[in-house]
């Protein structure tokens, strides 16, 4: 063996994926359900082939073969406790596949349109029939998973649950938080308590490097670096970015508008809007001259109005957005949303005055209808 070969083999021992970095539970669930799906498809294919054969035989003998219409299975008796893998079909056509040891209860009335189920134990996958306007919710300990037209798996773990989304989108809620998961996302809920981004009203730690300085991570060195939260955020994977940022710690957010805006987006788009406020406020307090300050103010207004329900603060943020960038394309939006925020804050007189000012300045403005409606003007 040559010297280089020895070196390579030695170096090769360091290459690989540490077992603790593999989400074996999620992988196993995905595998089981895909095997099950393949089995069902094959069974359906066999039925179709048999029907075709029967049809062909019927034609040969000159008799009509009436195909059997598949009968919908009856509504299952709840609670369902499965000794082995079992699939139950609900009254709306949605299906729940319970792995061995799972126990599923129906909380909502069996004939009702809305479906609320409680997973008392084990693991179950839900293939939800799309139906506008109705609620499909699974309670698992302190966690609630709510969906509209999707497939997802819930595994009870202690008081919480692991959720894996196969298709579509779900909202996972727990006592003091919520998060949206898209296809292929998974997570354990409630998440561990940790502050992902800058705490509200708290200055960044002194260790935060100056703007444009390279990022430093206080987290212990992983045996195999995962993508940074910034890379994940750029790829649109905000839930994973949030988790990565949580591991990296708040010190990993640089004190510059680009990084702070990215951190705010990660918090906001991963279902943690309350944690988006601090980085946005930091931009407004320390980088007000930056060209992105107006966008930060507008985003803060949206978070406060739509997510954290703080209309007074939202009105101030929208006013600041207008003031910082009066010529921005967002200015009309900021104006309209400020009117809406003032109405929601109960300050209708100020809202009307602001609405009239908008209408006089932008008589044919794109938000004229919205502003009139919000302020109750004819």
């Amino acid at each position, binding site marked *: 063996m040559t010297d*280089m*070969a020895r*070196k*390579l*083999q*030695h*170096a*090769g*021992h*360091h*290459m*690989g*994926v*540490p*077992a603790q970095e*593999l*989400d*074996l539970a999620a*992988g*196993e669930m*995905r*595998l*089981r359900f*895909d*095997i*099950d799906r*393949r089995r069902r498809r094959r069974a359906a294919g066999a039925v179709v082939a048999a029907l075709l054969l029967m049809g062909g035989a019927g034609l040969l003998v000159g008799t009509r073969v009436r195909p059997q219409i598949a009968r919908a299975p009856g509504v299952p008796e709840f609670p369902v406790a499965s000794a082995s*893998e079992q699939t139950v079909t609900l009254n709306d056509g949605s299906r729940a596949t319970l*792995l*061995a040891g799972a126990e599923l209860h129906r909380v909502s009335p069996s004939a009702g349109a809305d479906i609320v189920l409680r997973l008392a134990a084990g693991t179950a996958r839900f293939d939800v029939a799309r139906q506008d306007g109705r609620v499909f919710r699974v309670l698992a300990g302190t966690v609630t998973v709510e969906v509209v037209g999707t497939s997802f798996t819930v595994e009870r773990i202690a008081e919480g649950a692991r959720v894996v989304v196969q298709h579509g989108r779900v909202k996972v809620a727990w006592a003091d938080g919520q998060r949206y998961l898209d296809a292929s996302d998974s997570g354990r809920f409630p998440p561990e308590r940790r502050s992902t981004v800058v705490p509200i009203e708290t200055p960044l730690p002194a260790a935060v490097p100056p703007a444009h300085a390279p990022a430093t991570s206080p987290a212990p*060195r992983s*045996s*195999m*670096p*995962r993508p940074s939260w910034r890379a994940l955020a750029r790829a649109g994977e905000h839930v994973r970015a949030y988790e990565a940022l949580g591991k990296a710690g708040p010190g990993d957010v640089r004190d510059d508008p680009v990084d702070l805006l990215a951190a705010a987006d990660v918090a906001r788009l991963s279902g943690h809007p309350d944690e988006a406020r601090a980085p946005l406020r930091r931009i407004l307090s320390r980088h007000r001259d930056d060209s992105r300050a107006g966008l930060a103010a507008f985003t803060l207004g949206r978070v406060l109005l739509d997510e954290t329900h703080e209309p007074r603060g939202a009105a101030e943020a929208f006013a600041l957005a207008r003031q910082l960038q009066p010529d921005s394309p967002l200015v009309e939006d900021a104006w309209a949303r400020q009117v809406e925020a003032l109405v929601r804050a109960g300050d209708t007189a100020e809202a009307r005055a602001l609405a009239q000012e908008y209408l006089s300045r932008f008589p044919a403005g794109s938000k004229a209808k919205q502003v009139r409606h919000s302020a109750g003007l004819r």
Partner: protein
Amino acid sequence: MSAFDVGAAYRRWAPYVANIAARLLGSREDVEDVLHDVFMAAVKGLRNLRDPEAIRGWLASVTTRVVSQRLRARGLRRWLGLGSVPEVNRIVAPGASPEEQALLARVYRVLDDVPIKERSAWILRMIEGDDLASVATACGCSLATAKRRITAAQARIDEVLHDD
């Protein structure tokens, strides 16, 4: 094999498959998807295997095949200008010295331009440390072909590293 056994097999063998996949791919990217594809493809064969060594060999051959498909797709994406070469350092553990990390990065850069069959055989032999018979089994070829592929990849590596 029942569904429960599939899960047990997955938990038992997934780390092994993930390591081979990462070394063959040269990156952490796609490892979970490869794992899934390997077990979806291997489940039928696993049903008939009891000996751990046989299972190991079977999984290595399925992993090699699945990774080869991925590498072909990756090559196509690169050819179309839609993808980039992954960083080898992303799967190198901290235990590797800077010199080893640099060596691996250079070697994998060369391997990105080596035919996939030769690349796989070489990685299994030189990085994974498999014997020639195991390499031949995993690559689905004869012993002589496995040797030829390893030699061809090695020649290319020697040539480039020598030039460097």
